[in-house]
């Protein structure tokens, strides 16, 4: 079976610091509006008056957790399938990358991706996204985001090895169903994690962050 690189994210250790986001933006000199990596904060819960003191409120299942997501380098990349210019390809390492010299900027891949990975670059007029820092990998290095993570919760490796070690369920809110594109991604869910489709929480990010 061909190798498939995948990111592994330990959501129990993430503090939403966005060093990964900025490391990626810096590495590729991305402007405002283009975020190849995004950190999503999912929050929920409610408050009720205390039984003992009328002006005191008690938190009920108030929770938050963050997910750092770039591109899932899916096993069934819908973006590559539907790109009219054949600008998106999957290589022998499983990395899905956009050849910006072929992109026509129609943004169809943006409609196809359930993870918001393809990001339109206004100045250049083409779609861009995480390419697993494949040129750094070729030099024996790691993706910029992985080396940046201050809590050491973002890693990468071979998909099946990671799944064997950490499990294969990635249907955790706010992520969508995994059967659409088969994301090559492994996740250790936070203790408050809720299942895809059954989440009682919501995204706390303001739209401009993403």
């Amino acid at each position, binding site marked *: 079976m061909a190798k498939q690189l995948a990111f592994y994210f330990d959501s129990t250790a993430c503090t939403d610091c966005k060093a990964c986001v900025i490391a990626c933006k810096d590495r590729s000199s991305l402007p405002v509006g283009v975020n190849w990596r995004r950190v999503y904060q999912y929050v929920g819960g409610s408050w009720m008056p205390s039984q003992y003191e009328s002006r005191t409120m008690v938190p009920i299942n108030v929770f938050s957790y963050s997910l750092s997501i770039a591109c899932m380098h899916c096993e069934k990349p819908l973006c590559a*399938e539907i790109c009219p210019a054949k600008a998106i390809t999957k290589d022998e390492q499983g990395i899905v990358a956009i050849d910006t*010299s072929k*992109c*026509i900027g129609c943004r169809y891949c943006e*409609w196809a991706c359930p993870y*918001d990975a393809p990001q339109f*670059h206004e100045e250049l007029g083409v779609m861009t996204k995480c390419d697993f820092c494949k040129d750094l990998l070729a030099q024996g290095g790691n993706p910029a985001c992985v080396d940046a993570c201050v809590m050491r919760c973002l890693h990468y490796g071979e998909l099946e090895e990671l799944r064997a070690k950490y499990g294969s369920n990635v249907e955790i809110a706010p992520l*969508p169903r995994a059967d*659409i594109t088969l994301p090559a991604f492994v996740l250790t869910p936070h203790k408050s994690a809720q299942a895809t489709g059954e989440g009682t929480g919501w995204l706390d990010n303001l739209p401009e962050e993403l």
Partner: protein
Amino acid sequence: MNLREWSLVFFTILGQMSVGSFLVLGVAHFFASRKKGVEAADRLSDLALLAIGPVLILGLVASIFHLGNPTNAYRAVANFGQSWLSREILFGVIFAAVGGLYAIMQWRKLGSTAIRVVIGWIAAIVGIALVYSMSKIYMLETQPVWNTLMTPVSFFTTTLLLGGLAVGAAFVANYAYVQRKDPGCADAQCELMRDSIRWIAIGSIVLLGIELLTLPIYLGYLAADGGVGAASIGLMIGKFSWVFIFRLILAFIGAGVFGLFLYQTALSPGREKVMGNLTYAAFVFVLIAEIMGRYLFYATHMQITI
């Protein structure tokens, strides 16, 4: 909504209208030749046929505006094997080429009738393939609001509704031209025109019926979906409620009310002036309604995403 999404609205509307006009013209021409002969049929439809070309070109030009990097536009057909978008572009180009060839051959009476008929059929089939491809583009698993039967149904409904009324309007304009240029043929042309418009009116009412019947089923399906579907409805009846309401009112008036009067006035001779105005009015109302409807299609879609 921005330049990019407006360009898609106009590309799909104008493209579908072009295909619809071509198909309706083909049918009208067929029945007109049976009734009054090929020459009369040609006089009825040739100019209308030529008018399709510029509309289609306009639509294709509009589509360029939605590209971020138009210098690479020629690459858009590269993924014909897998991507419905590549197929749409290819069919669009072929339809324009073959349809254009047919129009020129018709206009200049090049080649035999038989050959022209074959070319016409090819163009028609490619045109249908074009509209079909257009609808398939939107049938992505990540777009539950688009990924329903409603998309191809509404695309084809638009195709025939706009195509029919556009042809009706073209016939009315053509008749005015014929009256000036060739008064001797006017009566025969008038009869053919009224016949066509009568059927176009019937067709418009039926297609309006389809639009109005499928809409509640579609909305019900969206509501039941919860999540993204319900959010989409929220937009339709919230932020875009006035667009939603006016689009239906205009379509009802244009295709329904005017369509009915159109049928009436087309039944017997003598009311061509009123019939002509009604035709134009119906076309304009329905065109605006369809543009608004397509605008809603883009503005209220909600994607499966994080």
